[in-house]
């Protein structure tokens, strides 16, 4: 056996040597920031030092040539330091205001949009999809690319009432996370079981335990140990699919896309909120998912037209009420919008507060 090298368990690297020198110098000493134009921030430290940040959108899944282009721009037009945001935007820091415009020009020339700050629609937090996930109902990078093409103007401008965070997820596990608008796969049919494979591939008790509604039970099918599903109980979440791939939940036609709104991670104003289902049944339609884009744009247009300044999506909806949200967006309200999971009564209207 070949001699193996033991890993050096260093964990998360120290960012200090990598920080822009002004960020390192003024670490913990910032007192103010300004937003001179979309995609640009100016931070001021207590000693008067100022640093300008230029934020650009990226495709997140980047080839080394793209990354090297971003590095070339950092070396020529900035100070050789960058950082990435939670939503895969890249940020360049410069110590001199005069370097901002040439940096923006270079990024634009290389095809990177400048924006994503303040009241814009930022880059979509997204998942892996068909490119790399083992349980995807749809793609992620493709949905994101198609949607960001449509929302490009809203990324490079700051015309929304408050910031808008989007996410996409390629199954109901929702790795994309909570967002003002979330685009998430919604399965509509119970899994189809390949009984020939279950016994060899799946740890059956673990699969039974995984089901949120106890719809799965062990069974003998054609003399082989397998699993069966009570299809009356099954709500098609797909939780059984990761531990048991023969329980195929994906289907080219019955896998649909749902849209959720009103998620907010920030504690600013109201407490953080989960996004809520507003529409479903949209087709999983690559390569550009036009039906999804149409609904997202419809919701954004209603929010942009009607919300007051500093109202996030959920702040706006809490003011106008859900009935008017459905009215203003033109989205249908159905029995599927009424929650029946545990704790659901908390979501019902226990009052005579009705908007007319």
């Amino acid at each position, binding site marked *: 056996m070949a001699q*193996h090298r033991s*890993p*050096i*368990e*260093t*964990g*998360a*690297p*120290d*960012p200090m040597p*990598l*920080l*822009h020198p002004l*960020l*390192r110098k003024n670490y*913990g000493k910032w007192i*103010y*920031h300004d937003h001179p134009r979309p995609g640009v921030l100016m931070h001021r430290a207590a000693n008067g030092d100022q640093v300008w940040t230029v934020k650009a959108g*990226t495709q*997140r*899944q*980047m*080839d*080394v040539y*793209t*990354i*090297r282009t971003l590095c070339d721009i950092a070396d020529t037009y900035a100070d050789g*330091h960058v*950082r990435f*945001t*939670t939503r*895969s935007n890249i940020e360049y820091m410069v110590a001199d205001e005069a370097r901002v415009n040439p940096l923006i020009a270079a990024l634009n020339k290389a095809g990177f949009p400048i924006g994503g700050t303040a009241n814009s629609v930022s880059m979509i937090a997204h998942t892996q999809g*068909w*490119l*790399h*996930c*083992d349980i*995807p109902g749809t*793609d992620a990078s*493709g949905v994101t690319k*198609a949607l960001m*093409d449509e929302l*490009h103007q809203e990324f490079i401008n700051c015309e929304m009432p408050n910031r808008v965070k989007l996410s996409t997820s390629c199954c*109901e596990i929702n*790795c*994309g*996370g909570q967002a003002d608008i979330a685009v998430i796969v919604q399965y509509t049919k119970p899994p189809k079981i390949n009984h020939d494979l279950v016994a060899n591939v799946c740890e059956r008790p673990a699969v039974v335990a995984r089901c*949120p509604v106890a719809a799965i039970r062990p069974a003998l099918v054609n003399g082989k140990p397998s699993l069966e599903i009570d299809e009356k109980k099954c709500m098609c979440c797909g*939780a059984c699919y990761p531990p048991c*791939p023969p329980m195929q939940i994906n289907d080219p036609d019955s*896998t649909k896309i749902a849209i959720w709104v009103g998620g907010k*991670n*920030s*504690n*600013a104003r109201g407490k*953080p909120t*989960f996004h809520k289902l507003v529409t479903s049944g949209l087709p999983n339609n690559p*390569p550009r998912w036009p039906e999804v884009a149409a609904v997202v744009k419809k919701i954004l247009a209603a929010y942009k037209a009607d919300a007051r300044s500093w109202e996030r999506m959920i702040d706006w909806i809490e003011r106008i009420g859900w009935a008017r949200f459905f009215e203003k967006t033109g989205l249908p309200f159905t029995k599927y919008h009424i929650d029946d999971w*545990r*704790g659901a009564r908390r979501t019902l209207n226990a009052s005579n507060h009705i908007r007319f």
Partner: protein
Amino acid sequence: MAKKTHDTPMLDQLEGGPWPSFVTGLKRLAKDNDMMVDLLGQLETSYQTRKGYWKGGTVGVFGYGGGVIPRFTDLKDEAGKPVYPDAAEFHTLRVQPPAGMHYDTKTLRKLCDIWEKHGSGLIAFHGQSGDIMFQGIRTDKVQDAFDELNENGFDLGGAGPALRTSMSCVGAARCEVSCYDEARALREVINNNLDDMHRPALPYKFKFKFSGCGNDCVNSIQRSDFATIGTWRDNMQVNNEYSRAYFKAHGMTDLVNDVVTRCPTKAIQVMKKREVKAGPQHSVAELDDEHCMVIDNKDCVRCVHCINVIRGGLLPGKDRGVTILVGGKGVLKIGASMGTVIVPFMKLETDADYEKLKELARSVLDFFAENALEHERVGETVDRIGLVNFLEALGLPVDPNMISEPRSNPYVRTDGWDEEVAKWIEHKQQQKSAA
């Protein structure tokens, strides 16, 4: 030169439009990389059939039990051979980024060179847990790629039932609302528990996240089992120069509509300067020669909305630290849940303070390892056993800041009432003597 590329009519449609195209990047790599030629072939097939074709397996590096996401193609022909053989193995290395995701170009170029040499040349900055995802490598190259990354100061992240890679916001590096050293907290906590990351043996995944203030830019409350969110105890700081500048630019209507009425606890009043009777709990910000904004810090919940609007005019106080919340998670199995408060305030300034945070993090991990059921997130454990049992196991005192409201049902046995009251009185006395 790589082998001939496959036709990709669906993916080609994702090359147009103003947003940077990942497809163009994949094609660029495919010019001299057979793995990417075949990756494009399989991805195009997914676009045509609307199905995924990856399955997991077991791939790792010597000494670690996790951190590599194995992917083997499931797209086979009738003879059972991969339709796209050069992408038949397409694993991902999850690698922990520097806290705050700061890089210099030398480091980024080095990462590119290593991945070009051993892998596909496709890198995601970053995955949803914060990892740098080096995507696309054959099984036999995984060890070499890791060794070279590791020699250059990078370490694998978490996968499976393990401590996961963490994230912290930009924080103290470039934000005036930062309430502690987020990057330090991340590294102290995560790097103290690497055994649980590299050798997965927990009941299920466990995530820590670190946000410098209530804006929670890394979404810690919803995306982590243990959320550390910056806050402060004393009065908000005021900078009259900046508060006056805001008022001059925006006027009274914006101030009222965007700041005063948006305060969730109505802690802000606009007052005539001569009428202000500021007590020790008030912050008073000048607006002009006549008007002031008076904040009652006892009513303030540190939501940071007013700080976001009146940039620089209002800032966190000086007595800073963190609120710690436990139990945030995604959908499976009980439904998405937010973290809830287990420590309303913990000072985070001195070495001893960070040591205390590390100890608490380790105790929560130990409790989780010993008490959670298989495939149960700690939020589900708390759901199952009740917050009180969780707090008692950790030796944390109950506090009214942990609830939205007290119970509204009588279904509780209260024959320990007097003992609990005694605990409360003792806790209050301890707090008083500590202050």
